[in-house]
């Protein structure tokens, strides 16, 4: 299974959901496939899931989708028990696990290339619906259920290491530009001010 193919299935289904991405392929490929105003391209290791949790608990009526990677989740494992105990039923986490730090360009293996299983860890942390998918059909089934049903889901997507994202033109969107577009979209869709000049 290739991550780009998974994201190709997800992109047309995103309407009013919020999408938070981690770095590297998740960010590059998603930004290429989706121009949704509700995309927040966090783009740093170990931070997207935390931001997604904050958005999910603050906007419990909005579906929040976090696109994570194995290396990024491994860098922020403290998120798992926090997520389990908060248990936001509007949050979907897709972890694209290629068992590699592919962003490094020398593709050193992550712990999931060895004995570590992120879905098992998530279940151990208390996340009930934590599963692993290994093919596109299973991904589509989980994705469809996650989008249509309430309940926290943590879907580990075992993917082949693909370097295709290196051939995609990276977004030029500055983090501040992304923040303002994202926040103005939320202000419009939620009908409330968020960032004001006077706080």
């Amino acid at each position, binding site marked *: 299974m290739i991550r780009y193919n998974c994201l190709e299935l997800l992109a047309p289904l995103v309407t009013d959901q919020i999408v*938070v991405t981690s770095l590297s392929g998740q960010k590059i490929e998603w930004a290429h496939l989706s121009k949704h105003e509700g995309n*927040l391209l*966090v783009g*740093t290791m*170990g*931070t997207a*899931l*935390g*931001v*997604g*949790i*904050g*958005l*999910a*608990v*603050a*906007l419990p009526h909005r579906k929040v989708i976090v696109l994570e990677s194995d290396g990024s989740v491994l860098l*922020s494992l*403290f*998120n798992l*028990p*926090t997520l389990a*105990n*908060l248990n936001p039923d509007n949050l979907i986490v897709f972890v694209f696990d290629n068992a590699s730090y592919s962003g490094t360009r020398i593709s050193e293996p992550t712990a999931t290339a060895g004995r570590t299983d992120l879905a098992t860890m998530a279940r151990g942390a208390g996340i009930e619906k934590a599963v692993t998918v290994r093919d596109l059909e299973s991904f589509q089934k989980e994705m469809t259920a996650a989008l249509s049903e309430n309940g926290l889901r943590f879907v580990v997507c075992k993917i082949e290491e693909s370097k295709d994202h290196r051939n995609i033109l990276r977004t030029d969107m500055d*983090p*501040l530009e*992304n*923040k303002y577009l*994202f*926040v103005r979209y*939320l*202000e419009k869709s*939620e009908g*409330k*001010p*968020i*960032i*004001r000049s*006077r*706080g």
Partner: protein
Amino acid sequence: MKAELANRMVVALKNSGIDFISHVPETRLSEMLPLLKADDTFMLVPVASEAEAVGIAAGAALAGKRAAVYMEGTGVFVSAYNLLTVGIRYGVPMLLLVSYIGSVEDQRNTFLYSQYGCRMIPQLEALGIEYRIIEDGGNIGAKVSNAVRAMHALKQPVALLFTGEFTEAQ
């Protein structure tokens, strides 16, 4: 922290519009935690690391919450990466409520804490985070509301470092 001061602190946060607090428990300011929990104004999010406390507060702030992170001073070091990559890089206002453990005025300072305390200011300055040291509860309402106004004006984290009277045992 004495109960009366804890109460005034919580009132100050409420009056300043703070409505979301992610936190890792610590000792010196802990008397305000039951008060925060008892007040429906605040959405409290207990977390396992100050690093995620910052990320979660950032997400909440981008969704319209007036966010604070309550942590021990050591948490500033733990969360430095998140403060930089999310709080500052994205320009997210949040109030850091920091127990200034190991500072000279920390009434419970020992060799266990002093090395953290003496490096706190250089750490915040390296991160470019505006801060104020608060040693007593006089005008606490104004001190908190000034910091909240500054975090919105700057659109980035602002820290309040509590020491002195705030570190006295109950």
